[in-house]
């Protein structure tokens, strides 16, 4: 018996028993669709949270130094960081002028840290919405993962020579300039003119909106505008995840040498704190991995339930066809022809069911994405082909195994025994 004939026979038998075929498919459809939807939603969720962390600054190292000798130790640490340029692509102070600064552009006047005149009745945290004047280097944008919207970053010389230039965050730009292009315009800070050289795209971080409300000026203005307070906070940008780990290790060793511990375990000469957002991202990754495991378990169970459904219907189907197998054997069917026929039948039914399942899974995923649009804003949920194919193969293999097993059993019977079955 050739294969084509076997296929024709299989299709015929499927078409003849529509209800039975549909029920068989239903198990597979439900199994595949639910796995596809669940895994996709889960992956979308993980992707979304990772995206948030990436925006905030992956491979970003936060360094705090409190040195008793003032600037000298800090300068040595900065120089050391520059020598680590294989791992580090930028470093910037991340200080803020904590005194109130009056910012003016044209007729517009905004004061920072103006706590007395703040309207507390709105219930909003003023820290989130008010402007912040930051002291940074020409690498402030790179280190904090800002992307340039237009204009340029400050230059090394501008920072070194204490030239009055500034960068604007998207929020600050909007508050001062609205929709007009700020590049080349001049604003005043406490009456001193600063030229805007560029501005950053919005970060849109839900929990850190203040990151958009910044005005960055060269950190060399610390002396004149910030009472020469110590700048304790620095942001270092590593080249990639591995560099982050490497740079952290080297810096820790260097800083431990600079601030050694005495016999009582207290640091001498000052103190430091070193941390990276990667560890936060790693935690998030762990959390979403745990979520993946839970969802995976649920998906696995639904696939298992679907599989048991497939198994049952296949067992019943073939058992009720034992007589047919007997007839076929009596008129000369070889065992292999019968097994081939049932194999193809199961494979065809399961494949059709699996394909429908994938289709419903895709549609279901999109519906889920729409229903949970608030959570997945900006992300279009789409199942990964890998998941769809995996669920599909699993169901098909399951269907074939349980479709085949009774056929193998029945085809091994003496024809007379199979014929007696009813």
């Amino acid at each position, binding site marked *: *018996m050739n294969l084509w*004939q076997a296929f024709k026979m299989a299709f*015929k*038998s499927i078409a*003849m*028993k529509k209800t039975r075929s549909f029920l068989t498919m239903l198990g597979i459809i439900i199994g595949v669709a639910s796995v596809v939807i669940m895994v996709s939603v889960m992956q979308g969720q993980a992707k979304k949270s990772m995206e948030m962390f990436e925006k905030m600054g992956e491979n970003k190292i936060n360094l705090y130094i409190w040195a008793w000798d003032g600037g000298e130790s800090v300068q040595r640490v900065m120089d050391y960081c520059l020598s680590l340029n294989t791992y580090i692509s930028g470093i910037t102070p991340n200080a803020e002028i904590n005194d109130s600064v009056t910012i003016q552009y044209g007729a517009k006047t905004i004061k920072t840290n103006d706590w007395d005149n703040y309207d507390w009745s709105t219930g909003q945290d003023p820290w989130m919405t008010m402007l912040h004047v930051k002291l940074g280097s020409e690498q402030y944008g790179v280190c904090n993962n800002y992307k340039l919207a237009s204009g340029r970053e400050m230059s090394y010389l501008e920072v070194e020579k204490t030239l009055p230039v500034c960068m604007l965050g998207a929020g600050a730009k909007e508050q001062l300039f609205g929709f007009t292009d700020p590049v080349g315009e001049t604003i005043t800070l406490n009456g001193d003119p600063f030229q805007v050289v560029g501005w950053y795209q919005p970060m849109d971080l839900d929990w850190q909106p203040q990151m958009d409300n910044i005005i960055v000026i060269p950190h060399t203005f610390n002396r004149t505008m910030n009472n020469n307070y110590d700048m304790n906070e620095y942001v270092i940008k590593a080249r990639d995840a591995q560099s982050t780990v490497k740079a952290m290790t080297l810096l820790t060793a260097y800083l431990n040498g600079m601030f050694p511990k005495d016999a009582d375990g207290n640091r001498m000469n000052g103190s430091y704190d070193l941390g990276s957002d990667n560890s936060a991202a790693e935690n998030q990754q762990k959390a979403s991995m745990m979520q993946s495991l839970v969802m995976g378990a649920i998906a696995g169970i639904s696939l298992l339930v679907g599989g048991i459904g497939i198994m049952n219907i296949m067992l019943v189907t073939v058992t009720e066809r034992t*007589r*047919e197998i*007997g*007839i*076929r*054997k*009596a*008129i*000369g*069917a*070889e*065992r*292999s*022809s019968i097994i081939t026929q049932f194999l193809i039948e199961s494979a065809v039914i399961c494949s059709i069911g699996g394909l429908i399942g994938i289709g419903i899974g895709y549609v279901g995923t999109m519906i889920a994405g729409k229903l949970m649009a608030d959570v997945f804003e900006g992300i279009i949920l789409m199942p990964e082909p890998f998941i769809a194919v995996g669920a599909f193969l699993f169901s098909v293999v399951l269907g074939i195994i349980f479709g085949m097993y009774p056929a193998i059993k029945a085809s091994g019977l*003496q*024809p*007379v*025994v199979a*014929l007696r079955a009813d």
Partner: protein
Amino acid sequence: MLIDIRNLYKIYNEGRESEVRALDGVSLQIDKGEFVAIVGQSGSGKSTMMNVLGCLDIPTYGEYRLDGNDINSLNDKQLARIRNREIGFIFQGYNLIQELDALENVTLPLIYRGVSVFDREDMAMAALAKVGMDDRAHHRPSEMSGGQQQRVAIARAIATSPPIIMADEPTGALDSKTGKHVLEILRDLYRGGTTVLLITHDDGIAATAKRVVRLSDGRIVSDRQQEVDWE
């Protein structure tokens, strides 16, 4: 010698209290071109006899040679080949596959034989024409009467032109008129040189065979030739 069985036993639940000897040491030889009726009461072992002779069942003990082949030494594949090419079965309950129409049912043994797709349909139609069912080729079994179904079953049995036809109570479920018609077809086959084995409990039907083998309690109690008038 076409069929040659010696000391054949078929024992169920051997060694237990419920032991049943369906065939209890049967020896029988049938030549090519004979028309043999195997008769007996129900429970006499005649159906078991046909199942064993038709390679649908294996004997517990004993020798069985079919056209020189030792059946006991054949494997599953070779037995399937014999059932396909050497023997055509006609069952009391027709045993047609309900999902297939008459033509497809008759085509099945040809498919298993490996007949090419171009010849298959012609051969099946020829077989249907022989039993007068060619006008019902595309009816399903459920759309046919018992007699018509049995004729399709006969067409299926003769489609591969096997040298032996085995019929187990072929008229059992039919009224006497259609039964007569079915017997007529068997006689035609016999005239064409086919060896026919007819299993029946009905002495009236047995009376139309040239040779009658009578079974009782799994043993052959008589085996005689008779003159019959087939006009």
